[in-house]
């Protein structure tokens, strides 16, 4: 039981009630009303997200990309909206974070559609470009991935922290002081570029805020056992990089 008295998300499917179709339909139709209410709530939340004020990006960040030096403005690739995945692959790491890789498996292949909605999607990490490109090849991904190695971008967007901030728990992570597990954390940031070329930071999300980007979890939400992580510590203990599952 959770402290609030609610039942834990159970994956126990033994002795599940089995009924006639008419009874199923009655239960399903009643539940549909709740799903519709949830969809309406999401529709209310999204305009509030878009209504948030923007902050102007004053620093001239330069990234190391496949075409050499690329400014933040270049990363828009002619679009007015840029979505950045802060992918955890720090300097000196052998491979990308498994959880970030899971998220990337979800969005790899959709950038072609986003481009036609005036959105460019890129991943940014602090490791040198050669490390990113080697790992991207290993995973078979095609999205754009640039290195912020050497610039303040990740630190300014609260996606990287100094070893001191991590050690003493003073990292400003997900809008409060916390102690992350590593100097790199995952997240998504959104930017807008106006016709004059000025860039604005419009949105960032971290920790469970990135749930909405992971379709695989939402498919699990439809299945009888759900995410089935209640007994796992950490909850994602089941997760491997796509080429590291044993079967």
């Amino acid at each position, binding site marked *: 039981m959770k402290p609030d008295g609610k039942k834990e998300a159970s994956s126990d499917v033994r002795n*599940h009630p089995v009924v006639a179709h008419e009874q199923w339909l009655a239960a399903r139709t009643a539940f549909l009303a709740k799903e519709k209410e949830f969809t309406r709530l999401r529709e209310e939340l999204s305009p509030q997200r878009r209504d948030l004020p923007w902050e102007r990006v004053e620093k001239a960040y330069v990234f190391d990309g496949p075409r050499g030096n690329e400014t933040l403005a270049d990363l828009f690739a002619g679009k007015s909206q840029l979505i950045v995945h802060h992918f955890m692959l720090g300097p000196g790491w052998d491979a990308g974070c498994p959880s970030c890789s899971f998220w990337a498996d979800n969005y790899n292949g959709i950038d072609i559609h986003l481009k036609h909605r005036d959105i460019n999607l890129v991943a940014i990490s602090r490791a040198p470009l050669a490390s990113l490109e080697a790992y991207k090849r290993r995973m078979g991904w095609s999205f754009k991935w640039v290195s912020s190695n050497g610039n303040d971008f990740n630190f300014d967007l609260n996606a990287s922290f100094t070893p001191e901030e991590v050690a003493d728990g003073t990292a400003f992570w997900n809008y409060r002081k916390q102690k992350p597990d590593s100097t790199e954390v995952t997240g998504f940031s959104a930017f807008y570029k106006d016709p004059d070329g000025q860039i604005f930071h419009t949105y960032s999300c971290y920790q469970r805020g990135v749930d909405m980007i992971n379709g695989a979890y939402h498919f699990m939400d439809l299945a009888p056992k759900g995410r089935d992580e209640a007994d796992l510590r950490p909850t994602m203990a089941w997760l491997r990089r796509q080429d590291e599952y044993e079967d």
Partner: protein
Amino acid sequence: MKAAANKHKVVSEAEWLKARKKLLVKEKKFLRLQEELGLERRGLPWVKVTKDYVFEGLNGKQPLADLFEGRSQLVIYHFMFGPDDKLGCPHCSLRADCFNGINVHLKHRDVTMICVSRAPFKKLAAYKKRMGWGFTWVSSGNTDFNFDYHFSFTPEDMAEGKAFFNYKIQDPGPSEREGHSVFYKDQRGDVFHTYACYSRGK
């Protein structure tokens, strides 16, 4: 929204942070609701599947029980691709682009995810090859499967503009519709229909 974007409110970092934190509270509340909804969804009763549906796939004829590929949970995407259609629906193709790379992970959560359409298997295989997708896609063209689960509609339904779609009698639009069906297979091999969603998915 272009004009609106040009006049958007621009503030200092401190003010931005204040507004962002306020929205974060609402986002967290939304995630809690999502969890509650997930629990309720899994609490829905199941219905035993008593018909013997046989699909056409890469390995020839495959009963519904085989589609689980050894796992206990089967999530089907009903991909709009009717018997006479030359190509798959563009909207369904966008969804497929979104889930194409996640099967490797779902497999390790005891979930097999596949697509089902009424077009002959040959057409599905050719379109899948063109799109570069890796998921399993079988044809239900010789079965009642799509009709029983309200993803395909008869010429009579279409002529009247009345069909049972998304849990009410309405005009379903085209004769094939998209959505998900979920099934569970127990250790004895009995298969149960647990969930389906249509239209906006909600």
